[in-house]
């Protein structure tokens, strides 16, 4: 299965991936309307300092501890993609407590949100991958 991989060597720390992610998941057709003057809640986050930076989003683990731990049965694996049912989530943050990557964060409403590889969105490539100007985020199959 194709997953998102990042290489900090190429990351510019420009945060564009965060904006593309927030836009792709906003359900709006205009990037300006979706993002301008709003606090964005992207599912991918840049970590780092002036020298090193890298993007972190869900690794879609083959044995996902978040799915096993979710107290509501809101997280599940569908064809390798770790998905969240936001209707079922109660925002208890158990998944935040167990994800070793710090890849889950609450949405504006308090329920959890996470990267779902853009399977509900435009399709093809995840928006962060398509939008990264320096190919620091790659979407491919790795062993």
């Amino acid at each position, binding site marked *: 299965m194709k997953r998102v*991989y990042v290489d900090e060597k190429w990351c510019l720390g420009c945060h564009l991936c965060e904006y593309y992610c927030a836009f792709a998941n906003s359900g709006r057709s205009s990037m300006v309307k979706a993002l301008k003057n709003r606090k964005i809640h992207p599912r991918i986050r840049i*970590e780092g300092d002036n020298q090193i930076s890298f993007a972190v989003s869900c*690794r879609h683990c083959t044995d996902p501890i978040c799915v096993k731990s979710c107290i*509501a*049965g809101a997280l599940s694996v569908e064809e390798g993609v770790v998905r969240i049912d936001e209707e079922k989530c109660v925002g208890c*943050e*158990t998944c935040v*407590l167990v994800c070793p990557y*710090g890849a889950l*964060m609450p949405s504006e409403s308090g329920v959890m949100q996470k990267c779902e590889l853009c399977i509900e969105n435009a399709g093809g490539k995840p928006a962060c991958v398509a939008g990264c100007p320096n190919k620091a985020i790659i979407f491919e199959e790795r062993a």
Partner: protein
Amino acid sequence: MAKYVIIGNSAAGVACVEGIRSVDREGSITLLSSEPYHTYSRPLISYLLEGKTDEERMKYRPDDFYEKNGVDARLGVRVTEIDPSEKTVTLDSGEKIPYGKLMHAAGSVPFVPKIEGMETVEKKVTFLSLDDAKALADALTPESRVLILGAGLIGLKCAEGILSRAGSITVVDLADRVLPSILDETGAGIVQAHLEMHGLSFRLSDTVQRFEGNRAVLKSGETLEFDVLVVAVGVRPSVSLIENAGGAVRRGVATDETGRTSLPDVFAAGDCAESYDISSGQSRVLALLPNAYFQGHAAGVTMAGGREELKKAIPMNAIGFMGLHILTAGSYTGETYVSRDGENYKILFYESDLLRGFILIGNVARAGIYTALIRERTPLSGIDFALICEKPQLMAFTAQARRDLLSKRQ
């Protein structure tokens, strides 16, 4: 004969089904449960009262779960006996069901202390099941004065759930602080102040000496009038079936890392069983949903002939009240790193080059990075500890470790 029989229809029982089916798609599974409901998420009963979920959404697995997994689910039947020599279980109807491999995932039962006059209390409930939640909802009116016995996880979650349905809520606990099993004094102070701000009253270091109908006389001498009593002083592992069958029981059912009990072909998992806590080096009951799942899954895989062990068990709690989140893990021993800013509180416990435990209140973002340090027993000398103290972040790892985390399949 069913190849696999499972007692229990909650986290550990469901995990056992999923564990078995990850190895064996065919072998017949019979699941027996005293509760008459489709599998539901027990921790969500307080959210149900709060209106944050409903009976449909709080199902722990989709409606087609049993069918898809080829499970003959017999809901609303109670097992009264396990006969390990005949390899049968007996139901309350008298029916005997033979098993090849048996999973005992019977959870826990509420502990109700003996207090003088308890029988004179008109409306009293425990808070452990969907039926309890329904009974409590029925008992409440918007004017109800509620008395909750126990300021632990269950008592306080119950309080949060009924806050807008009750007139007033008073919580009594013998301990000198709230959530005594997971919080230190400072953390408990922050949480208590937060709860009081939302209208709860506390009587700590105190207990009910006797009930006289709807009056509770406390040890301190104070008398409290109430309309509804919630008994939430704790739970006890359900061990009687295993004990009566001659199986080894300590505080909970004794199991090895695959969930095997001392009885041949009998496994146990979840709140009824003990696990080996690597953060304290002790075998103990970790009555928490994630652990119930891990243990049930490992046992299911093992029952079906595969290999999986519960290796990294630690206590882990995620709990929150009215927007204030509390995440804790591990054991509270060793040196500490503390930071506090208003309701945001962090204390890390470390010793022998390992992170042993932590308490985070308020800002809990990315706490799983801390939890993984405890579970994986990552040597602190190999990471940037100052950065880790500042906040959970992958920057604290070496570039090589980050490459392994972010550029490889996980």
